[in-house]
């Protein structure tokens, strides 16, 4: 039985001292290879939970373990390093750095992590080759790759972001409402590609959305309210 990819224990988080807790989670676990669909109303703390798993925020109490490493026991730079090495992120929109090329946007993930760089080199002869391979898989062909990123459509930008999240084989990919700015057809297409790529790479995927129509592709569908007490209380109220 491999270690869980994410394991949360007795976590409590609030944005400001004196505020009501935004997250209060007794326990939550994601196992390796899972494709988790995490849903919840906007403002229920989904993005905050992702930031805690990514090590960008630290909880007031409790433990966040990713791949058996306790993020709450690390320093800020250690968490940054850990995130760079093990987690790929895809956001809702504006995922790309406007002044970098498509390839350089993908390779950005390798710039801050030696581990990702070395693992990417294991997949292709050069970093560039590996980026091209991933982009090909995600249907970003050569003419598209040559364009300035600001000229790509939102859907194309999201696919480039997916390539960046996947390059160098991170153990965990976190996608925070990556399809909400796409129309329905493209949502489905993007989701298929993402799920397929994560499956091929053996990457654990946490997909956050409030749109239950997308839940079909996932191995587990879970509502934040089911394990986060404040959200549960809000929903009950």
């Amino acid at each position: 039985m491999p270690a869980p990819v994410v394991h949360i224990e007795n976590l409590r988080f609030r944005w400001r001292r004196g505020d009501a807790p935004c997250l209060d989670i007794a326990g939550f676990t994601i196992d390796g290879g899972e494709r988790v669909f995490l849903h919840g109303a906007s403002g229920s703390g989904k993005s905050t939970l992702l930031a805690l798993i990514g090590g960008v925020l630290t909880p007031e109490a409790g433990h966040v373990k990713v791949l058996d490493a306790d993020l709450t026991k690390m320093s800020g730079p250690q968490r940054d390093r850990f995130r760079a090495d093990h987690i790929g992120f895809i956001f809702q929109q504006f995922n790309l750095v406007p002044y970098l090329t498509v390839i350089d946007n993908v390779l950005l993930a390798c710039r801050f992590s030696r581990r990702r760089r070395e693992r990417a080199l294991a997949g292709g002869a050069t970093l560039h080759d590996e980026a091209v391979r991933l982009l090909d898989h995600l249907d970003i062909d050569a003419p598209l790759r040559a364009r300035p990123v600001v000229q790509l459509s939102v859907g194309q930008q999201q696919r480039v972001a997916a390539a960046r999240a996947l390059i160098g084989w991170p153990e965990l990919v976190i996608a925070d409402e990556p399809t909400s700015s796409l129309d329905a057809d493209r949502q489905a297409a993007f989701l298929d590609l993402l799920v397929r790529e994560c499956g091929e790479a053996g990457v654990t995927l946490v997909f956050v959305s409030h749109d239950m129509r997308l839940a079909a592709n996932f191995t587990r569908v879970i509502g934040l309210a089911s394990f986060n007490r404040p959200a549960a209380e809000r929903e009950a109220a």
Partner: protein
Amino acid sequence: MSHLFALAVRSAWNRRLTLGLTVIAIALSVALLLGVERLRADARESFSQSVSGTDLVIGARTSPIQLMLYSVFRIGDATNNVRWQSYQAIAARPEIAWTIPLSLGDSHLGYPVLGTDGAYFRHFRHGRAQPLEFAGGAPFREIFETVLGADVAERLGYRLGDKIVLNHGMGDVSVAGHSDKPFTVVGILKRTGTPVDRTVHVSLAAIEAIHLEWQGGAPIPGVSIPPQHVTKFDLTPKNITAILVGLRSRPDVFRVQRYVNEFRDEPLLAVLPGVALDELWRIVGVVERTLFAISAMVVTVGLAGLVAVVLAGLNERRRELAILRSVGARPRDIFVLLSIEGLFVTLCGILGGIAILAAATAALSPWARTHYGLVIEPRLVSLGELQWVLAVLATGLLAALIPAWRACRLSLADGLTPRL
């Protein structure tokens, strides 16, 4: 670090319009700062190069600075003269090795005419004790012969053997001319980088000769003495403007100075050139410091503009910073990224400023030389200027830390999802 540098440069290039304007502002301010410094250094240099090996400068009693200005630098006019008898008495002193009489007041197309004698070509020194050298020809011997400084010859296109006419007074074009007595160019001096280059040299007797039929600054009506007859008159000068003195032994300088300052027949003044120059710098120093302070403030304004532009741009870059954070950039990396950007813009500004200044120096130095006798050497950056370049760079880095710090704070607060 190198990938941060590449990112910073590409990010800056992406905002090249606003940052470009900032670079221009910094470049102009740096050009101004270095220009003031260059002018200051070169003005001092050319002044102190103008006279060398002269122990005392003697003239009618006035302020030491004024005496230096009109006798050595040909700036302004003498208020009074030295009588020829006084000159002879001083020249006869046993402590004195040589004297150069100087008689000023006439001009040729704006260039000062200096009446002197052969001692000028033998004893006058400039720069590091360099003697005057001839590019062509030789010192004057006859009355209506002249030796030209390098600029006069070059600017007016005179060659050996040309005839020129002197004007009375210092105007560019004078109504009162000495056109009846033209001079032949017999010598042209090599360039010295001093006021000598702008001077038309003639003999003392020549100065007398062209003023024979003049009285009180105007021609006597109806009197005209043709050049071939001037030798019939006594051409010993009655007055001269100033005297340059070389001593046999330097320690005598104060004794001779006292002798001149207490001269019984007329009020005279003897100054040590170095001392008078120091006094000049003390006075000019106030202006220099003021100018320098102003240009330093202009640089500060330029750098403040940099801070403002980068700070103003931060808000729209929060998304970009969040992306960098998500791929593992530490807050420290964000800080370094923004610092590099500020430093890079400052550096471009400095290089631009140096280029502007080099171009301006190259374009204006001939003009400054002919009009003010100021030798501004075309160069990129001197050692003295380099310290200011480094100071601007350090200030620029310091200024860049402000937006860097702010970006760092913003990205810590924003995490992965900027609240815009």
